């Protein structure tokens, strides 16, 4: 029997992976070959999707990007024996894009069958939890603190400190809430992990629960991710049946129940307190802090809120020790980050690397330049609330503190590449417009500031008292940054001001911008 891997990841499906799998099955039948097709997660080389792999004595051999129409030709070339073909890339593990990464969180993604708990176990899965079950809660928290892990959702708050707060509180009920409301454009790491290695997230959440004494957890997944929702729900059911969730986990007398909650298309619900409201079945209106959610979170109880990437890093930290994880990275940014190279780029995908790698390395060495072949003009880093950086700042190392120094943020590790046709005044306007649409409306700077921001940028574009309006916009941005309740209004000035600072020429054109006509329409 020959084993062939065809990803079930949504990105692969979006370019025809299901059709490829069907074609392989029917060609195999015709050729009377005994082929077993495993629907794995994605390896993260999304530019090669659909990436088909064949198990050979030497290892897994990759072909991509494969379309259903290529399958007959692949069979003729003998791809089932790993033979050469114009879509062939040799051994998957030797592809430079993949080989040069440091896969800790994504160690299994794309390699295993996402819904096989045996596969998961045989690739180191549940080693972390098994160890955690023999430890005291405070020891688990200590291990996470040692690792230097910081919140991967963007804020970068030390995970160990958050856990310790919840651990030290006495309460009749505590919760773990996983933020899988990955709404930032240019990010897809959470989705890839949930679809490609769901047990890793389940294990991370279970360790968190055991560490702080929580017995119920929620994963809040955005509705734009129907595939991830489905896989997570199935995986939870499988884990429950195998006694890795539920009562008396593996005979440890510890219990943990896990539920999936699906969002309903509100970007703001990625903000932690808004997410709590949403899990409680309410409008996603941001809460005042204090009290912080660690003290009074979900249903008023102590709650750990962590991003998918933070929780998915926990199993390996427990399995190999906090020091192992801490030894990756630079400065106070320890471990690895799953960078997502997206937008106008030739080789888009997920690259897990230790902190310290630069934007230039990511977009040149991995990204391979723009898809359009034109020069890169800007890269937006850290989502729609992140800064637009020009090539002169591409050598700043990926490090929370170094990025703060250049008025930017690493965020969730998403990089969106733009070529030289981008109009930065238009991008600045979009940032304000997006904030106006997605603001929860609770605080004035965000709710009204964003609408005024769009109007002022329209005037700047139309050459209406440009200098005066640029000063007004800068002032408005200070107000929003300093007095908004949460990061939505507080960070919207970042893309806006970075566009003005780094690309002033787009705001000082000799003639009014054609874009105004489109915008006014």
């Amino acid at each position, binding site marked *: 029997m020959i084993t062939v891997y065809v990803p079930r990841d949504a990105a692969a499906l979006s370019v025809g992976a299901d059709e490829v799998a069907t074609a392989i099955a029917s060609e195999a039948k015709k050729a009377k070959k005994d082929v077993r097709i495993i629907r794995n997660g994605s390896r993260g080389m999304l530019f090669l999707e659909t990436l088909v792999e064949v198990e050979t004595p030497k290892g897994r051999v990759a072909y991509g990007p494969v379309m259903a129409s290529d399958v007959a030709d692949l069979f003729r070339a003998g791809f089932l024996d790993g033979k050469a073909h114009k879509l062939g890339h040799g051994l998957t593990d030797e592809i430079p894009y993949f080989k040069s990464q440091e896969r800790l969180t994504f160690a299994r993604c794309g390699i295993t069958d996402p819904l096989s708990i045996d596969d998961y176990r045989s690739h180191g899965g549940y080693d972390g939890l098994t160890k955690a079950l023999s430890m005291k809660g405070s020891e688990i928290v200590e291990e996470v603190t040692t690792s230097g892990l910081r919140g991967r959702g963007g804020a970068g708050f030390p995970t160990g400190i958050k856990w310790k707060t919840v651990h030290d509180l006495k309460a009749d009920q505590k919760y773990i809430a996983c933020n899988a409301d990955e709404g930032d454009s240019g990010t897809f790491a959470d989705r890839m992990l949930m679809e490609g290695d769901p047990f890793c997230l389940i294990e991370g959440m279970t360790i968190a629960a055991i560490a702080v004494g929580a017995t119920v957890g929620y994963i809040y997944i955005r509705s734009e991710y129907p595939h991830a929702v489905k896989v997570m729900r199935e995986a939870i059911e499988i884990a429950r049946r195998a006694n890795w969730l539920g009562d008396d986990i593996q005979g440890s007398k510890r219990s943990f129940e896990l539920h999936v909650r699906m969002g309903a298309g509100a970007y703001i619900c990625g903000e932690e307190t808004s997410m709590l409201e949403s899990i409680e*079945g309410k409008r996603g209106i941001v809460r005042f802090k204090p009290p912080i959610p660690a003290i009074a979170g979900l249903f008023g109880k102590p709650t750990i809120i962590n991003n998918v990437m933070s929780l998915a890093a926990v199993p390996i930290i427990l399995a190999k020790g906090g020091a192992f994880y801490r030894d990756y990275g630079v400065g106070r940014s320890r471990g690895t980050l799953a960078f997502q190279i997206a*937008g106008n780029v030739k080789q888009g995908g997920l690259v897990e690397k230790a902190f310290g790698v630069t934007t230039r390395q990511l977009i040149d060495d991995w990204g391979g330049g723009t*898809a359009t072949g034109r020069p890169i003009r800007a890269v937006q880093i850290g989502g729609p609330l992140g800064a637009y950086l020009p090539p002169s700042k591409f050598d700043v190392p990926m490090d929370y503190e170094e990025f703060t120094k250049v008025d930017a943020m690493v965020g969730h590790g998403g990089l969106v590449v*733009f070529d030289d046709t981008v109009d930065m005044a238009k991008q600045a306007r979009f940032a304000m417009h997006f904030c106006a649409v997605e603001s929860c409306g609770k605080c004035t700077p965000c709710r009204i500031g964003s609408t005024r921001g769009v109007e002022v940028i329209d005037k700047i574009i139309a050459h209406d008292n440009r200098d005066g309006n640029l000063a007004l916009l800068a002032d408005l941005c200070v107000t929003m940054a300093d007095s908004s309740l949460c990061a939505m209004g507080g960070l919207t000035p970042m893309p806006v001001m970075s566009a003005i600072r780094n690309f002033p020429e787009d705001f000082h054109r000799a003639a009014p911008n054609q874009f105004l006509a489109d915008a006014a329409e």
Partner: protein
Amino acid sequence: MAKSKAKFSDVKTEVVAAVPTSAEIAALAVCARHGNKPDELLEILHELQEQIGYVPEATLTAIGKALNISRAEVHGVVTFYHDYRREPAGRHIIKICRAEACQSMGTEKLCDHAERKFGIKLGGTSADGAYTVEAVYCLGNCALSPAMLIGDRLFGKVDPTRFDTIIAGLAQEAAE
């Protein structure tokens, strides 16, 4: 103008048994399946919309009663989230991503194309009731932009030509 003075005694009161509509019955059944728990309101609304295509105004009171919350609270949730529809949509709901990564790969052209093709603006439904086209902000397919979601089917690298091919495929499926 002379006003007629109506007395209470003039008003004919008719006792009408409040017959629940089929939508209300469906809503109550969904609520019951979720244990009438108010924290499951989002899930309840998703499921109801999945069944009847939108969240009819008439169901808000019923849901509120079932979950022991006010109609206003239900209304608040329905109107806060972009996903919930208050009116029926086309048979196919096409969500085109307009966020930054897709912008960098020309999603604006794709949106224009879709608008022209169906003679609508984003958010509208084609005259034959077959297609509703909406903008969304990020489908998590940012390395294969522009992206589009139709039902639960995700598409990547969608340019106007591929868009037409996909729509033709849908029409063919419908015909079969």
